[in-house]
Protein backbone atom coordinates (compact mmCIF):
# COMPACT_ATOMS: atom_id res chain seq x y z
CA UNK A 1 0.00 0.00 0.00
CA UNK A 2 2.74 2.38 1.04
CA UNK A 3 5.00 1.50 -1.87
CA UNK A 4 2.08 1.72 -4.26
CA UNK A 5 1.21 5.19 -3.04
CA UNK A 6 4.74 6.44 -3.47
CA UNK A 7 4.93 5.01 -6.93
CA UNK A 8 1.76 6.83 -7.87
CA UNK A 9 2.96 10.17 -6.58
CA UNK A 10 6.30 9.93 -8.31
CA UNK A 11 4.69 8.81 -11.52
CA UNK A 12 2.60 11.98 -11.52
CA UNK A 13 5.68 14.12 -11.26
CA UNK A 14 7.64 12.33 -13.88
CA UNK A 15 10.65 11.81 -11.64
CA UNK A 16 11.56 9.21 -9.04
CA UNK A 17 13.43 9.20 -5.77
CA UNK A 18 14.08 5.90 -4.10
CA UNK A 19 13.29 6.03 -0.41
CA UNK A 20 16.61 6.09 1.41
CA UNK A 21 16.68 5.07 5.06
CA UNK A 22 20.12 6.54 5.64
CA UNK A 23 19.52 9.85 7.45
CA UNK A 24 22.84 11.23 6.24
CA UNK A 25 22.06 10.67 2.57
CA UNK A 26 21.09 13.76 0.58
CA UNK A 27 18.65 13.26 -2.26
CA UNK A 28 19.08 14.49 -5.81
CA UNK A 29 17.97 18.04 -6.47
CA UNK A 30 14.98 17.97 -8.84
CA UNK A 31 14.97 21.73 -9.37
CA UNK A 32 16.75 23.30 -12.30
CA UNK A 33 19.34 25.87 -11.28
CA UNK A 34 18.33 29.50 -11.77
CA UNK A 35 20.35 29.94 -14.95
CA UNK A 36 21.63 26.86 -16.68
CA UNK A 37 22.90 26.05 -20.12
CA UNK A 38 20.60 23.10 -20.28
CA UNK A 39 17.44 25.13 -19.96
CA UNK A 40 15.70 27.07 -22.72
CA UNK A 41 15.68 30.84 -22.87
CA UNK A 42 12.40 32.20 -21.48
CA UNK A 43 10.89 35.22 -23.22
CA UNK A 44 7.96 37.05 -21.62
CA UNK A 45 5.37 38.71 -23.84
CA UNK A 46 3.29 41.28 -21.96
CA UNK A 47 1.10 44.29 -22.67
CA UNK A 48 -2.40 45.72 -22.34
CA UNK A 49 -5.59 43.83 -23.23
CA UNK A 50 -6.14 43.52 -26.98
CA UNK A 51 -2.74 44.83 -28.06
CA UNK A 52 -2.00 41.62 -29.96
CA UNK A 53 0.07 39.45 -27.60
CA UNK A 54 -1.60 36.22 -28.63
CA UNK A 55 -1.50 37.07 -32.34
CA UNK A 56 2.23 37.83 -31.98
CA UNK A 57 2.79 34.59 -30.08
CA UNK A 58 0.99 32.64 -32.82
CA UNK A 59 3.02 34.41 -35.52
CA UNK A 60 6.30 33.61 -33.71
CA UNK A 61 5.27 29.95 -33.39
CA UNK A 62 4.47 29.84 -37.11
CA UNK A 63 7.74 31.50 -38.12
CA UNK A 64 10.12 29.87 -35.64
CA UNK A 65 8.42 26.51 -35.02
CA UNK A 66 10.34 24.74 -37.79
CA UNK A 67 13.78 26.02 -36.81
CA UNK A 68 13.61 26.08 -32.98
CA UNK A 69 12.30 23.68 -30.34
CA UNK A 70 9.73 25.93 -28.71
CA UNK A 71 6.82 25.84 -26.28
CA UNK A 72 4.31 28.37 -24.92
CA UNK A 73 2.82 29.18 -21.50
CA UNK A 74 -0.33 31.32 -21.63
CA UNK A 75 -1.73 33.39 -18.74
CA UNK A 76 -4.94 34.74 -20.18
CA UNK A 77 -7.38 35.68 -17.41
CA UNK A 78 -9.84 33.48 -19.20
CA UNK A 79 -7.42 30.67 -18.63
CA UNK A 80 -7.80 28.52 -21.69
CA UNK A 81 -8.87 31.24 -24.13
CA UNK A 82 -5.41 31.91 -25.52
CA UNK A 83 -4.33 28.30 -25.30
CA UNK A 84 -7.42 27.30 -27.30
CA UNK A 85 -6.68 30.02 -29.85
CA UNK A 86 -3.14 28.74 -30.29
CA UNK A 87 -4.25 25.12 -30.49
CA UNK A 88 -6.92 25.93 -33.05
CA UNK A 89 -4.50 28.04 -35.06
CA UNK A 90 -2.55 24.81 -35.48
CA UNK A 91 0.77 26.61 -35.09
CA UNK A 92 2.02 24.35 -32.33
CA UNK A 93 1.52 20.80 -31.12
CA UNK A 94 -1.07 21.07 -28.27
CA UNK A 95 1.38 19.31 -25.94
CA UNK A 96 3.69 22.32 -26.28
CA UNK A 97 1.11 24.72 -24.84
CA UNK A 98 0.44 25.07 -21.11
CA UNK A 99 -2.22 27.36 -19.63
CA UNK A 100 -2.04 28.66 -16.06
CA UNK A 101 -4.76 30.09 -13.83
CA UNK A 102 -3.89 33.49 -12.41
CA UNK A 103 -6.55 33.86 -9.71
CA UNK A 104 -7.92 36.96 -11.45
CA UNK A 105 -4.55 38.73 -11.01
CA UNK A 106 -2.47 38.35 -14.19
CA UNK A 107 0.33 40.65 -13.01
CA UNK A 108 0.72 38.67 -9.76
CA UNK A 109 1.28 35.47 -11.73
CA UNK A 110 4.11 36.94 -13.85
CA UNK A 111 5.71 39.20 -11.26
CA UNK A 112 4.97 38.78 -7.53
CA UNK A 113 4.33 35.05 -7.33
CA UNK A 114 5.67 33.20 -10.36
CA UNK A 115 5.06 29.73 -8.91
CA UNK A 116 2.34 28.59 -11.33
CA UNK A 117 4.30 29.82 -14.34
CA UNK A 118 7.54 28.15 -13.22
CA UNK A 119 5.60 24.92 -12.69
CA UNK A 120 4.24 25.19 -16.23
CA UNK A 121 7.70 25.88 -17.67
CA UNK A 122 9.11 22.88 -15.78
CA UNK A 123 6.32 20.63 -17.05
CA UNK A 124 7.18 21.66 -20.62
CA UNK A 125 10.90 21.10 -20.02
CA UNK A 126 10.20 17.64 -18.64
CA UNK A 127 8.04 16.82 -21.66
CA UNK A 128 10.52 18.19 -24.24
CA UNK A 129 14.08 17.79 -23.03
CA UNK A 130 15.74 19.84 -25.78
CA UNK A 131 13.65 23.03 -25.82
CA UNK A 132 15.43 26.14 -27.14
CA UNK A 133 12.75 28.64 -26.23
CA UNK A 134 9.70 29.04 -23.99
CA UNK A 135 7.41 31.97 -24.72
CA UNK A 136 5.47 33.06 -21.62
CA UNK A 137 2.48 35.13 -22.66
CA UNK A 138 0.98 37.31 -19.94
CA UNK A 139 -2.72 37.94 -19.57
CA UNK A 140 -3.72 41.40 -20.74
CA UNK A 141 -2.90 43.88 -18.00
CA UNK A 142 -1.92 47.49 -17.41
CA UNK A 143 1.15 49.55 -18.22
CA UNK A 144 2.85 48.72 -14.92
CA UNK A 145 2.86 44.93 -15.41
CA UNK A 146 6.32 43.46 -16.04
CA UNK A 147 7.74 39.97 -15.79
CA UNK A 148 9.87 38.95 -12.86
CA UNK A 149 13.47 38.25 -13.89
CA UNK A 150 13.00 34.98 -12.05
CA UNK A 151 10.52 33.94 -14.74
CA UNK A 152 11.56 35.68 -17.98
CA UNK A 153 15.16 36.12 -19.13
CA UNK A 154 14.07 38.87 -21.49
CA UNK A 155 10.69 40.43 -22.15
CA UNK A 156 8.67 41.99 -24.93
CA UNK A 157 6.00 44.61 -24.21
CA UNK A 158 3.30 44.91 -26.89
CA UNK A 159 1.23 48.08 -27.29
CA UNK A 160 -0.93 48.99 -30.27
CA UNK A 161 -1.73 52.17 -32.16
CA UNK A 162 -5.45 51.78 -31.45
CA UNK A 163 -4.76 52.14 -27.74
CA UNK A 164 -3.79 55.76 -28.50
CA UNK A 165 -0.49 57.33 -29.54
CA UNK A 166 -0.05 58.67 -25.99
CA UNK A 167 0.75 55.22 -24.59
CA UNK A 168 4.57 55.29 -25.02
CA UNK A 169 4.65 58.78 -23.50
CA UNK A 170 2.72 57.59 -20.44
CA UNK A 171 5.62 55.31 -19.62
CA UNK A 172 5.31 52.75 -16.83
CA UNK A 173 7.71 49.85 -16.26
CA UNK A 174 6.38 47.90 -19.27
CA UNK A 175 7.12 50.64 -21.75
CA UNK A 176 10.32 51.90 -20.14
CA UNK A 177 12.08 48.67 -19.08
CA UNK A 178 11.01 45.84 -21.44
CA UNK A 179 13.88 44.56 -23.55
CA UNK A 180 11.78 45.05 -26.68
CA UNK A 181 8.78 47.34 -27.21
CA UNK A 182 6.56 46.29 -30.10
CA UNK A 183 4.19 48.97 -31.45
CA UNK A 184 1.56 46.76 -33.05
CA UNK A 185 -1.20 47.26 -35.67
CA UNK A 186 0.63 50.12 -37.38
CA UNK A 187 -1.56 49.50 -40.47
CA UNK A 188 -4.45 50.99 -38.46
CA UNK A 189 -2.60 54.17 -37.50
CA UNK A 190 -4.23 56.42 -40.06
CA UNK A 191 -7.74 55.14 -39.31
CA UNK A 192 -7.47 55.65 -35.55
CA UNK A 193 -5.73 58.98 -35.89
CA UNK A 194 -2.46 57.83 -34.33
CA UNK A 195 0.67 59.75 -35.27
CA UNK A 196 3.32 57.08 -35.82
CA UNK A 197 6.20 59.56 -35.88
CA UNK A 198 5.20 60.89 -32.46
CA UNK A 199 4.57 57.43 -31.08
CA UNK A 200 7.95 56.02 -32.12
CA UNK A 201 9.83 59.18 -31.11
CA UNK A 202 8.17 59.04 -27.68
CA UNK A 203 9.01 55.35 -27.38
CA UNK A 204 12.70 55.96 -28.12
CA UNK A 205 12.80 58.97 -25.81
CA UNK A 206 11.29 56.95 -22.94
CA UNK A 207 13.48 53.88 -23.54
CA UNK A 208 16.92 55.22 -24.39
CA UNK A 209 18.96 52.42 -26.00
CA UNK A 210 16.29 49.71 -25.65
CA UNK A 211 14.82 48.30 -28.88
CA UNK A 212 11.55 49.46 -30.44
CA UNK A 213 9.85 47.74 -33.40
CA UNK A 214 6.82 48.85 -35.40
CA UNK A 215 4.78 45.87 -36.53
CA UNK A 216 1.68 44.99 -38.56
CA UNK A 217 0.67 41.36 -38.59
CA UNK A 218 -1.80 42.15 -41.37
CA UNK A 219 1.02 43.28 -43.63
CA UNK A 220 3.63 40.84 -42.28
CA UNK A 221 1.92 37.75 -40.79
CA UNK A 222 5.36 36.24 -40.08
CA UNK A 223 6.28 39.05 -37.62
CA UNK A 224 9.70 38.98 -39.30
CA UNK A 225 11.43 41.74 -37.33
CA UNK A 226 10.28 40.44 -33.95
CA UNK A 227 11.19 36.88 -34.97
CA UNK A 228 14.70 38.10 -35.83
CA UNK A 229 14.95 39.71 -32.40
CA UNK A 230 13.87 36.43 -30.77
CA UNK A 231 16.48 34.49 -32.81
CA UNK A 232 19.16 36.84 -31.49
CA UNK A 233 17.98 36.26 -27.89
CA UNK A 234 18.20 32.50 -28.35
CA UNK A 235 21.68 32.81 -29.88
CA UNK A 236 22.88 35.12 -27.09
CA UNK A 237 21.50 32.80 -24.41
CA UNK A 238 23.35 29.87 -26.00
CA UNK A 239 26.57 31.86 -26.28
CA UNK A 240 26.30 33.06 -22.69
CA UNK A 241 25.82 29.63 -21.16
CA UNK A 242 27.95 27.59 -23.55
CA UNK A 243 26.95 24.43 -25.37
CA UNK A 244 23.79 22.77 -24.10
CA UNK A 245 24.33 19.96 -21.62
CA UNK A 246 21.49 17.96 -23.12
Amino acid at each position, binding site marked *: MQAEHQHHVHGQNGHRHPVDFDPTAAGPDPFAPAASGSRPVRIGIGGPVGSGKTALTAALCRTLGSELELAVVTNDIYTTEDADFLRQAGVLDPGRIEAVQ*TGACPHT*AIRDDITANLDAVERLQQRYASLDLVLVESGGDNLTAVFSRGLADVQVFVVDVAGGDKVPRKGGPGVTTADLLVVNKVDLAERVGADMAVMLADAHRMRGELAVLAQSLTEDPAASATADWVRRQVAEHRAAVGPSAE
Partner: protein
Amino acid sequence: MTAMPTVSLATLALADSRFPGGGHAHSGGLEEAVHRGTVSGPEQLAEFLHGRLHGAGAQTAVFAAAAAHAAARGVRPDHWSLLDAELEARTPSPAQRAASRAQGRGTLRSGRAAWPSRALDELLATTGSPHHPIVVGVLLGAGASASPTDAASVVAYLSVSGPASAAVRLLGLDPFAANAAVTALRADTERIAAEAARTAGHRPENLPGASSPALDLLAEQHQRHHREEVRLFAS
Protein backbone atom coordinates in the same frame (compact mmCIF):
# COMPACT_ATOMS: atom_id res chain seq x y z
CA MET B 1 4.86 27.56 27.32
CA THR B 2 4.87 31.24 28.15
CA ALA B 3 1.67 33.25 28.25
CA MET B 4 2.70 35.56 25.40
CA PRO B 5 4.94 33.64 22.99
CA THR B 6 6.94 35.62 20.47
CA VAL B 7 5.80 35.15 16.88
CA SER B 8 8.70 34.29 14.60
CA LEU B 9 9.33 36.17 11.39
CA ALA B 10 9.07 32.88 9.46
CA THR B 11 5.55 32.37 10.82
CA LEU B 12 4.51 35.83 9.71
CA ALA B 13 6.11 35.43 6.27
CA LEU B 14 4.43 32.08 5.61
CA ALA B 15 1.01 33.43 6.60
CA ASP B 16 1.45 36.56 4.46
CA SER B 17 -0.70 36.53 1.33
CA ARG B 18 2.31 38.00 -0.47
CA PHE B 19 4.41 34.92 0.25
CA PRO B 20 5.33 33.65 -3.25
CA GLY B 21 4.18 30.05 -2.90
CA GLY B 22 1.47 29.95 -5.55
CA GLY B 23 -1.45 30.39 -3.12
CA HIS B 24 -2.87 33.45 -4.85
CA ALA B 25 -4.29 31.33 -7.67
CA HIS B 26 -6.31 29.05 -5.35
CA SER B 27 -9.77 29.82 -4.00
CA GLY B 28 -10.33 26.63 -1.97
CA GLY B 29 -13.70 25.91 -3.59
CA LEU B 30 -14.91 29.50 -3.23
CA GLU B 31 -15.02 30.15 -6.98
CA GLU B 32 -17.25 27.12 -7.51
CA ALA B 33 -19.47 28.21 -4.58
CA VAL B 34 -19.77 31.68 -6.17
CA HIS B 35 -20.56 30.13 -9.54
CA ARG B 36 -23.42 28.17 -7.95
CA GLY B 37 -24.77 31.20 -6.10
CA THR B 38 -24.00 29.62 -2.71
CA VAL B 39 -21.80 32.57 -1.79
CA SER B 40 -22.90 36.01 -2.96
CA GLY B 41 -22.25 38.35 -0.03
CA PRO B 42 -20.40 38.80 3.28
CA GLU B 43 -22.88 36.69 5.31
CA GLN B 44 -22.54 33.64 3.12
CA LEU B 45 -18.80 34.18 2.92
CA ALA B 46 -18.63 34.04 6.73
CA GLU B 47 -20.53 30.74 6.70
CA PHE B 48 -18.34 29.33 3.95
CA LEU B 49 -15.18 30.29 5.82
CA HIS B 50 -16.49 28.76 9.05
CA GLY B 51 -17.09 25.47 7.27
CA ARG B 52 -13.76 25.58 5.50
CA LEU B 53 -11.84 26.30 8.71
CA HIS B 54 -13.46 23.36 10.50
CA GLY B 55 -12.98 21.05 7.51
CA ALA B 56 -9.90 21.66 5.40
CA GLY B 57 -8.41 24.06 7.98
CA ALA B 58 -8.58 21.59 10.87
CA GLN B 59 -7.25 18.76 8.71
CA THR B 60 -4.27 20.70 7.42
CA ALA B 61 -3.57 22.09 10.91
CA VAL B 62 -3.17 18.55 12.26
CA PHE B 63 -0.54 17.69 9.66
CA ALA B 64 1.30 21.01 9.82
CA ALA B 65 1.63 20.60 13.59
CA ALA B 66 2.76 16.98 13.21
CA ALA B 67 5.35 17.96 10.57
CA ALA B 68 6.70 20.80 12.72
CA HIS B 69 6.95 18.44 15.69
CA ALA B 70 8.75 15.81 13.60
CA ALA B 71 11.15 18.32 12.04
CA ALA B 72 12.04 19.80 15.43
CA ARG B 73 12.80 16.44 17.04
CA GLY B 74 14.59 15.10 13.93
CA VAL B 75 13.10 12.06 12.21
CA ARG B 76 14.32 9.52 9.69
CA PRO B 77 13.59 10.52 6.08
CA ASP B 78 11.00 7.76 5.64
CA HIS B 79 8.84 9.50 8.24
CA TRP B 80 8.06 12.16 5.62
CA SER B 81 6.65 9.72 3.11
CA LEU B 82 4.48 8.19 5.86
CA LEU B 83 3.14 11.58 6.93
CA ASP B 84 2.53 12.61 3.33
CA ALA B 85 0.72 9.35 2.57
CA GLU B 86 -1.52 9.68 5.64
CA LEU B 87 -2.63 13.18 4.59
CA GLU B 88 -3.18 11.87 1.07
CA ALA B 89 -5.44 9.19 2.52
CA ARG B 90 -7.45 11.81 4.42
CA THR B 91 -8.02 13.93 1.30
CA PRO B 92 -10.58 12.06 -0.82
CA SER B 93 -10.91 14.64 -3.62
CA PRO B 94 -8.21 14.25 -6.31
CA ALA B 95 -8.64 17.93 -7.20
CA GLN B 96 -7.91 18.96 -3.60
CA ARG B 97 -4.93 16.63 -3.46
CA ALA B 98 -3.56 18.22 -6.63
CA ALA B 99 -4.16 21.74 -5.27
CA SER B 100 -2.40 20.85 -2.01
CA ARG B 101 0.60 19.37 -3.82
CA ALA B 102 0.82 22.34 -6.20
CA GLN B 103 0.95 24.74 -3.25
CA GLY B 104 3.33 22.43 -1.41
CA ARG B 105 5.70 22.46 -4.38
CA GLY B 106 5.48 26.26 -4.63
CA THR B 107 6.02 26.77 -0.92
CA LEU B 108 8.95 24.38 -1.02
CA ARG B 109 10.56 26.28 -3.89
CA SER B 110 10.25 29.55 -1.97
CA GLY B 111 11.15 27.92 1.32
CA ARG B 112 14.38 26.43 0.02
CA ALA B 113 15.59 29.93 -0.82
CA ALA B 114 14.50 31.36 2.53
CA TRP B 115 14.95 28.60 5.14
CA PRO B 116 17.09 25.76 3.77
CA SER B 117 17.42 22.73 6.03
CA ARG B 118 18.30 19.07 5.88
CA ALA B 119 14.74 18.13 6.85
CA LEU B 120 13.45 20.10 3.87
CA ASP B 121 15.85 18.32 1.50
CA GLU B 122 14.82 14.96 2.92
CA LEU B 123 11.14 15.81 2.60
CA LEU B 124 11.71 16.67 -1.05
CA ALA B 125 13.82 13.58 -1.70
CA THR B 126 11.31 11.17 -0.19
CA THR B 127 8.04 12.68 -1.42
CA GLY B 128 8.94 14.53 -4.65
CA SER B 129 6.02 16.90 -4.41
CA PRO B 130 4.83 17.07 -0.79
CA HIS B 131 1.48 18.29 0.52
CA HIS B 132 1.34 21.96 1.52
CA PRO B 133 0.77 21.66 5.30
CA ILE B 134 3.71 19.28 5.63
CA VAL B 135 6.02 21.73 3.86
CA VAL B 136 4.84 24.55 6.15
CA GLY B 137 5.38 22.36 9.20
CA VAL B 138 8.90 21.40 8.13
CA LEU B 139 9.85 24.99 7.30
CA LEU B 140 8.75 26.17 10.72
CA GLY B 141 9.86 23.19 12.76
CA ALA B 142 13.28 22.52 11.20
CA GLY B 143 14.79 25.85 12.14
CA ALA B 144 13.04 25.46 15.51
CA SER B 145 11.84 28.96 14.80
CA ALA B 146 8.24 28.12 15.58
CA SER B 147 6.11 25.64 17.49
CA PRO B 148 3.63 23.06 16.17
CA THR B 149 0.89 25.46 17.31
CA ASP B 150 2.35 28.18 15.09
CA ALA B 151 2.53 25.85 12.10
CA ALA B 152 -1.08 24.78 12.68
CA SER B 153 -2.17 28.42 13.04
CA VAL B 154 -0.53 29.36 9.73
CA VAL B 155 -2.27 26.70 7.66
CA ALA B 156 -5.60 27.14 9.49
CA TYR B 157 -5.42 30.86 8.73
CA LEU B 158 -4.42 30.26 5.10
CA SER B 159 -7.38 27.90 4.69
CA VAL B 160 -9.70 30.90 5.11
CA SER B 161 -7.59 33.91 4.06
CA GLY B 162 -7.17 32.55 0.50
CA PRO B 163 -10.91 32.03 -0.11
CA ALA B 164 -11.69 35.43 1.48
CA SER B 165 -9.28 37.15 -0.93
CA ALA B 166 -10.81 35.19 -3.83
CA ALA B 167 -14.27 36.42 -2.77
CA VAL B 168 -13.08 40.02 -2.95
CA ARG B 169 -11.72 39.43 -6.44
CA LEU B 170 -14.69 37.46 -7.77
CA LEU B 171 -17.59 39.32 -6.17
CA GLY B 172 -16.10 42.76 -5.66
CA LEU B 173 -16.93 42.33 -1.97
CA ASP B 174 -16.08 45.04 0.48
CA PRO B 175 -12.54 44.05 1.51
CA PHE B 176 -13.13 45.28 5.07
CA ALA B 177 -16.11 42.96 5.43
CA ALA B 178 -14.15 40.02 3.98
CA ASN B 179 -11.24 40.65 6.34
CA ALA B 180 -13.63 40.96 9.30
CA ALA B 181 -15.14 37.59 8.35
CA VAL B 182 -11.66 36.04 8.66
CA THR B 183 -10.76 37.72 11.94
CA ALA B 184 -14.13 36.80 13.46
CA LEU B 185 -12.84 33.22 13.41
CA ARG B 186 -10.15 33.96 15.99
CA ALA B 187 -11.46 31.69 18.76
CA ASP B 188 -12.10 28.80 16.34
CA THR B 189 -8.68 29.18 14.74
CA GLU B 190 -6.91 29.19 18.11
CA ARG B 191 -8.85 26.17 19.31
CA ILE B 192 -8.09 24.24 16.11
CA ALA B 193 -4.39 25.09 16.33
CA ALA B 194 -4.24 24.06 20.00
CA GLU B 195 -5.98 20.77 19.28
CA ALA B 196 -3.64 20.10 16.37
CA ALA B 197 -0.65 20.73 18.63
CA ARG B 198 -1.99 18.18 21.13
CA THR B 199 -1.84 15.39 18.53
CA ALA B 200 1.40 16.58 16.90
CA GLY B 201 3.47 13.77 18.44
CA HIS B 202 1.17 10.96 17.34
CA ARG B 203 2.31 8.40 14.83
CA PRO B 204 1.19 9.48 11.34
CA GLU B 205 -1.40 6.73 11.02
CA ASN B 206 -3.02 7.78 14.31
CA LEU B 207 -3.47 11.44 13.43
CA PRO B 208 -7.10 12.62 13.39
CA GLY B 209 -9.01 12.88 10.12
CA ALA B 210 -11.58 15.60 9.50
CA SER B 211 -14.05 15.21 6.72
CA SER B 212 -15.74 17.94 4.67
CA PRO B 213 -17.71 16.30 1.85
CA ALA B 214 -19.16 19.56 0.50
CA LEU B 215 -15.69 21.00 -0.06
CA ASP B 216 -14.63 17.75 -1.75
CA LEU B 217 -17.58 18.03 -4.12
CA LEU B 218 -16.97 21.73 -4.83
CA ALA B 219 -13.33 20.96 -5.66
CA GLU B 220 -14.31 18.18 -8.06
CA GLN B 221 -16.99 20.31 -9.69
CA HIS B 222 -14.52 23.17 -10.09
CA GLN B 223 -12.20 20.88 -12.04
CA ARG B 224 -15.06 19.65 -14.21
CA HIS B 225 -16.08 23.22 -15.05
CA HIS B 226 -12.49 24.04 -15.95
CA ARG B 227 -12.81 21.88 -19.00
CA GLU B 228 -16.14 23.40 -20.05
CA GLU B 229 -15.90 27.11 -19.33
CA VAL B 230 -13.96 29.90 -17.76
CA ARG B 231 -12.40 29.45 -14.32
CA LEU B 232 -10.03 32.06 -12.93
CA PHE B 233 -8.61 30.06 -10.02
CA ALA B 234 -6.72 26.78 -10.02
CA SER B 235 -8.97 25.43 -7.23
